[in-house]
């Protein structure tokens, strides 16, 4: 035995003797002083693995050290992997087949780094005498307990488990898929064999994906080049199903992306994670129902219901079919839209929900569409032979197609309304597996289509409404105004994206389109083709005028009024620089089309007390504007685990890890957050 200041080291043997040609376990037992630790084969952020250099009799062979699983050892902002109290590092030693009987002397030169607040490199020359004998060896009662403890901490190969891995954004994801019928434990910690693979100090995120367990870790920066495979140890304090061990050995090839987890939705309902998926689906459904009241959706559905009213006294069966067609149209187009987005994302596009509105072209086209719909509702023109969607003089088949198309239209007009209100929720969904994301969108569509469907199914509800009459015309005209309001909002969004000139172009285009609609309606009784042709030509001219220049002069920049926060433009370098100077930084990830963002800014961030505290505590407010596509923002959001705005990130002085605030802010939440810094953080670095 060697005793140093902090460690008692000893060579121990599993058996009382060794048999020629047969491996036997011999190892180094280290007993550390209280709170001192030694290191695993991957020591983590610092430290050094313990080393054993064997000096064996002639012909003996030594195998690799069998490392027991380590323990995470946080040291301030850093993380080490190692052992406290005691560790036994065993290795198989094999005497040659012709080893003579008698005492063999096994020597080992061991070096270990032992640390607490400080680190001491220590070493010891150790020796063990082990008899060699051809008879089967007896257990060594003195060491059995130690050997057993070490053996129980060896990672084992788990039968029937499969492992998958991929790099997702700035994370390394390892997925552990249990064999059929087994469920993974609730929690586990992954220790990679390889250094410089992950940031050991970043928390690991463990979630359930169907039957599988998903462990997400922050990749090292820069990430390892040409990563082909990862290996390591997954440790669960509650053990693994069918095994009385806490640690399993994990080896996975790293593929470009992870396939959807098997049974992601179906079997999830019954397990622990099923709760949150169930809640997500329930909220998606409620959200879908609420969409009916959105200014862009309500008019379209209102008109559909008007159509039903006219039929409510007619053929009940035909109405039910129409309702079902509408339902199908809405749900299918919701799924199609979600599918399109998932495909675009899978092909590498940096998109979040609401991505449509990052394109000025889409904003302009939506503005024109809503404007035309509103003009129609207010009575400037009737569709005439173009599309007799709201009239009843159609064949039965035509009416079914019409109902389906209404469902599609409802979805199309709903998207600009879903994005600003539901961006964060849908963003969460997108971080889940593809089948789950599709399920959430499907349920959203079901929720939106359900009220109209129910009305079609139970026409007696409609009979409570007044009989068709003049009131319907008035109601229809009133419905135009929410649409006009939506146009006003889209114009403002465009202004934030492409500047003042684009707004003028859009307004000019709207005037020309209005002229086209008016001419089309004014001479509606005139025969001949001049009317539709001129209307189409003028309409096209309107679109051409409104069409935004591909690269606008940029957004309005950062405009701060007196009494607002003194916003500055965000960049990752800026955050690093301010952080390095010891300043506290508040980043507002926002977009003009995000309504939640605007509400938060008015209600919480520009609250007088909040503005005062920002100044008093020297917090630098930065604004990251996602109104237009910006890959740097998308990337930063994804490194924060988000892909939609709003996101509010607060960096304490000198701490590069931000704390994220909730999506919906109140002045109290912000003040509470600010109070985490003591006094003026601006001078933290420039001390002494």
């Amino acid at each position, binding site marked *: 035995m060697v005793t140093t200041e902090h460690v008692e080291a000893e060579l121990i043997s599993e058996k009382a003797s060794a048999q020629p040609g047969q491996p036997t376990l011999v190892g180094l037992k280290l007993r550390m002083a209280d709170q001192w630790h030694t290191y695993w084969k991957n020591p983590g952020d610092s430290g050094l693995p313990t080393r054993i250099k064997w000096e064996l009799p002639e012909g003996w062979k030594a195998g690799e050290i069998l490392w027991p699983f380590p323990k995470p050892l946080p040291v301030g902002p850093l993380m080490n992997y190692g052992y406290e109290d005691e560790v036994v590092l065993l290795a198989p030693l094999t005497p040659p087949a012709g080893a003579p009987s008698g005492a063999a002397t096994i020597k080992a030169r061991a070096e270990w780094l032992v640390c607490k607040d400080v680190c001491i490199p220590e070493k010891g020359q150790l020796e063990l005498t082990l008899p060699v004998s051809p008879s089967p060896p007896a257990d060594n009662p003195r060491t059995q307990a130690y050997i057993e403890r070490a053996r129980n901490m060896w990672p084992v190969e788990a039968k029937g488990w499969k492992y998958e891995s991929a790099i997702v954004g700035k994370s390394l994801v390892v997925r552990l898929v249990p064999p059929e019928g087994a469920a993974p434990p609730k929690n586990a910690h992954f220790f990679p064999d390889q250094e410089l693979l992950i940031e050991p100090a970043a928390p690991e995120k463990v979630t359930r994906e169907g039957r599988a367990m998903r462990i997400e870790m922050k990749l090292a920066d820069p990430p390892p080049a040409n990563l082909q495979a990862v290996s390591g140890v997954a440790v669960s304090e509650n053990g693994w199903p069918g095994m009385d061990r806490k640690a399993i050995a994990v080896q996975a090839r790293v593929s470009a992306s992870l396939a959807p987890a098997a049974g992601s939705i179906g079997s999830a309902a019954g397990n622990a994670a099923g709760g949150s998926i169930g809640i997500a689906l329930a909220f998606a459904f409620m959200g879908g129902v609420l969409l009916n009241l959105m200014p862009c959706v309500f008019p379209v559905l209102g008109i559909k219901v008007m159509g039903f009213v006219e039929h409510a006294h007619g053929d009940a069966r035909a109405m039910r079919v129409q309702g079902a067609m509408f339902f199908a149209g809405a749900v299918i187009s919701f799924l199609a839209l979600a599918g399109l987005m998932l495909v675009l994302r899978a092909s590498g596009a940096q998109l979040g929900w609401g991505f449509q509105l990052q394109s000025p072209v889409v904003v302009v086209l939506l503005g024109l569409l809503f404007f035309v719909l509103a003009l129609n509702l207010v009575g400037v023109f009737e569709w005439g032979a173009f599309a007799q969607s709201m009239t009843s003089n159609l064949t039965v088949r035509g009416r079914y197609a019409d109902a389906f198309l209404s469902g599609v239209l409802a979805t199309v007009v709903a998207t600009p309304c879903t994005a600003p209100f539901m961006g964060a929720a849908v963003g969460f969904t997108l971080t889940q597996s593809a089948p789950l994301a599709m399920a959430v969108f499907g349920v959203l569509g079901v929720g939106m289509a359900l009220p109209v469907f129910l009305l079609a199914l139970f026409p007696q509800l409609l009979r409570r409404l007044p009989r068709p009459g003049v009131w319907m015309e008035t109601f229809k005209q009133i419905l135009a105004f929410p649409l006009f309001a939506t146009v006003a909002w889209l114009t403002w969004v465009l202004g934030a994206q492409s500047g003042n000139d684009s707004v003028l172009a859009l307004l000019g285009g709207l005037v020309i389109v209005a002229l086209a609609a008016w001419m089309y309606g004014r001479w509606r009784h005139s025969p001949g083709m001049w009317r539709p042709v001129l209307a189409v030509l003028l309409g096209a001219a309107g679109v051409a005028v409104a069409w935004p220049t591909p690269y606008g002069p940029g957004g309005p920049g950062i405009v701060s009024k007196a009494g607002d926060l003194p916003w500055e433009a965000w960049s990752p370098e800026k955050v690093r620089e301010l952080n390095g100077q010891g300043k506290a930084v508040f980043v507002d990830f926002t977009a003009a089309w995000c309504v939640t963002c605007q509400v938060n800014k008015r209600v919480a961030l520009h609250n007088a007390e909040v503005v005062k505290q920002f100044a008093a505590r020297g917090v630098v407010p930065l604004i990251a504007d996602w109104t237009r596509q910006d890959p740097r923002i998308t990337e930063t959001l994804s490194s924060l685990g988000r892909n939609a705005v709003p996101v509010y990130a607060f960096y304490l002085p000198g701490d590069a890890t931000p704390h994220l605030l909730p999506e919906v802010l109140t002045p109290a939440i912000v003040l509470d957050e600010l109070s985490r810094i003591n006094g003026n953080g601006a001078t933290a670095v420039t001390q*002494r």
Partner: protein
Amino acid sequence: MKTASLVATLAAVAIPLAAHANAGAGHAAPAFTLTDIHGKTVNLADFRGRTVVLEWNNFGCPFVEKHYGSGNMQALQKKYGADVVWLTVNSTSTGSPDYMKPAAVDTHLHEVGAAPAGYLMDDPGSVGRAYGAKTTPHMFVIDPKGVVVYNGAIDDKRSTNPEDVKTARNYVAAALDEMKAGKPVTTATTAPYGCSVHYR
């Protein structure tokens, strides 16, 4: 709106925060202003246009002792001192048993014959954290444009044994030689080894 916030709260609970900054190779070097052991203010920006070496240091650490006891670190500081700005940074917190006051550091530097262009005190640890300095030693090389071109260990022999210095491949020397020859740095990232930086 309510829906969004509730589901978003779920998301916020499920997604833990990322940790630790890192001045990884290829990234801009975080700016800083620190005070050296003589009370002089040193700003990284002042050295724009020159190559800067940052050496994280704590003389109480046996890994640092290996490179100073063998004369390795002083030799590097002297050999490259004319071409580069060699800054030694100490992020040991005042509460650590290894903390040394500036005057004590000064004496020790003379004793061992060290010659950095500056020895900077960072006991709040802000600069160390901004760079993601993990160990002592932990080396960074910053090119004249302010970009980190090397981040990692001093050499490839992870030990406390001074004898190993003779046979080790020194990554910092290799990077500086390549830069001088106008070549890109071949080994830009390695795992640093040493004691943990004793952050507050």
